[in-house]
C-alpha cells in the first residue's frame, strides 16, 4: 500500500466508525423511549402483567446501559478522529522532511527528521492504543446486544398474559423494541468488522 493510500484508509476507517457511532447513539434514544413505553404500559396493566412488568424494567435498565455505553463510544470516537487527523498532519510534514533530508544528505536535517519521526511514532502508538480501547468497548457492546434479544423474546412471551387489547399493545412495543435493538446489535457487529479490517 502506498503512503497516500494508507493515509486515506486510516481516515476511511475512523470516519466509518464515527458515522456508525452517531447513528447508534441516535438509535439508542429510540430504544430508550420504547423501553420506557413498555414500562409505562405494564404499570397501567396492573397486577395481571407482573411478568411483563419485571421484563420491561430490565429492558429499561438495559437501554440505559446501552445509551451510556454508546455515549462513551461516541466521545472516544471523537477523540480518535482528532488524533487521526493530528497523526496525518504530522505524517505529511515528516514525509516532506524525509524527502528533503534524503535529497540533501544534510546531517542536521537528518537529525531533525529523526527527532520528528520519534514524536510521530509516539503519536502512532497512542493512536493504536485508542483503537484497542475502542475495539474493547465494541466487544462489550456486542455482548450487551445479546441481552436485548433475550429480553425482547421474554417480553413477547410475557405480553401474552394480558387481555386481548393489552396483548396487542405489549406485543407491538416488544416487537418494536426487538427490531430497534437488533438494528443496534447488527450495526455494532458491522463496525467491529470495519475496526478489525475485515
Amino acid at each position, binding site marked *: 500500500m502506498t503512503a*497516500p493510500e494508507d*493515509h*486515506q484508509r486510516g*481516515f476511511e476507517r475512523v*470516519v466509518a466508525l*464515527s*458515522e456508525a457511532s452517531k447513528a447508534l447513539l441516535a438509535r439508542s434514544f429510540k430504544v430508550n423511549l420504547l423501553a420506557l413505553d413498555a414500562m409505562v404500559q405494564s404499570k397501567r396493566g396492573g397486577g395481571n402483567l407482573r411478568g411483563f412488568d419485571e421484563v420491561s424494567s430490565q429492558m429499561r435498565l438495559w437501554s440505559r446501559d446501552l445509551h451510556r455505553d454508546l455515549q462513551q463510544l461516541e466521545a472516544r470516537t*471523537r477523540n480518535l*478522529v*482528532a488524533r487521526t*487527523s*493530528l497523526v*496525518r*498532519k504530522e505524517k*505529511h510534514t515528516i514525509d516532506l522532511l524525509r524527502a528533503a533530508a534524503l535529497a540533501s544528505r544534510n546531517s542536521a536535517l537528518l537529525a531533525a527528521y529523526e527527532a520528528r519521526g520519534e514524536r510521530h511514532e509516539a503519536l502512532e502508538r497512542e493512536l493504536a492504543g485508542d483503537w484497542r480501547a475502542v475495539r474493547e468497548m465494541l466487544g462489550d457492546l456486542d455482548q450487551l446486544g445479546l441481552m436485548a434479544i433475550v429480553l425482547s423474546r421474554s417480553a413477547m412471551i410475557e405480553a401474552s398474559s394480558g387481555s386481548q387489547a393489552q396483548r396487542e399493545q405489549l406485543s407491538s412495543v416488544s416487537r418494536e423494541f426487538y427490531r430497534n435493538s437488533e438494528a443496534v446489535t447488527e450495526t455494532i457487529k458491522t463496525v467491529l468488522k470495519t475496526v478489525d479490517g475485515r
Partner: protein
Amino acid sequence: MKKAIKLFESGAHSWQVIARDPELPNYLIDTNEYLISAGEVALLTDPGGQEIFPAVFSALSAATDPRKLTHVFASHQDPDVISSLALWLGFKPDLRCYASWLWSSFIPHFGGTKETFIQVPDAGMNVELGGLPLQILPAHYLHSSGNLHLYDPTAKILFSGDVGAALLPPEHDGLFVTDFDRHVRFAEGFHRRWMGSAEARDQWCELAAKLPIDMLCPQHGAIYRGADVERFINWFAELKIGVLRRAG
C-alpha cells in the same frame, strides 16, 4: 476544539460555521470555516491552515459525514485559507477546489494536481452544489489581487472572505455582531491596512448593496446579520483604506 454551529437550514440545504477554537495558540489567527450542505454533497469555504486541520476535520466530522465533502472554496491564496489542502486531499483525493485562475500555479504549492482545481475567471461564475445554485463573485484586491466571495441566493448568505473580518479580543469574541459600533472598532484597523484599493472596494460595495443578504460571513471574527449587513457595507464604503499607519 472547534465546534460546528448551524446558521441556516431548509430541508437538506444548510450552512454551518466551524468556529472558535479555545485551544488555538495565540500566535495563530482564528478562522471561520463554513460548511454548505446540499443533500449528499457539501462544500467547505476557506478550509484553513495546515496547523488547524485536526480541529476543523474533527468539528466537521462531528457535524456531518465528511465523506459528503466534494468541494472546497478558496477565497484567495493565503496560508490561513488553504494551506491544509494536501491534508484534505489525503482524506479525499477527488476533492475539487474552486480558486481564482490567478493562483492556479501558486496554490498547488500547498498540494493538489491540475485536476484538483476549478479555475474561476475574474468575472466570477455560477456553480451548482448538488443542484443548489451558488454564485462565485469577484472581490479582487480585497485584499488579494485574485479574490473571490461566495453567495448563496437561496439562503441569502454571503461568504465574504476577509471583508468584514475583525480581530476580536477574547472578551468580545461572540459568533454574531451584537453591537455594531463596538464591533467595527475591531474591524477598522484590519480593513484600513489589508484592503488596498478604494476603487475595488467601491465596486464591491455597489455589488453587495444590490444583493439580498441576511448574513455576511467573514473568515475571521463575527457574523453580520440583518440590518448590520447594510450598516457594514455603508461603513466600509466610507472607510479610508490602503493606509499604512506610521509607527511611533
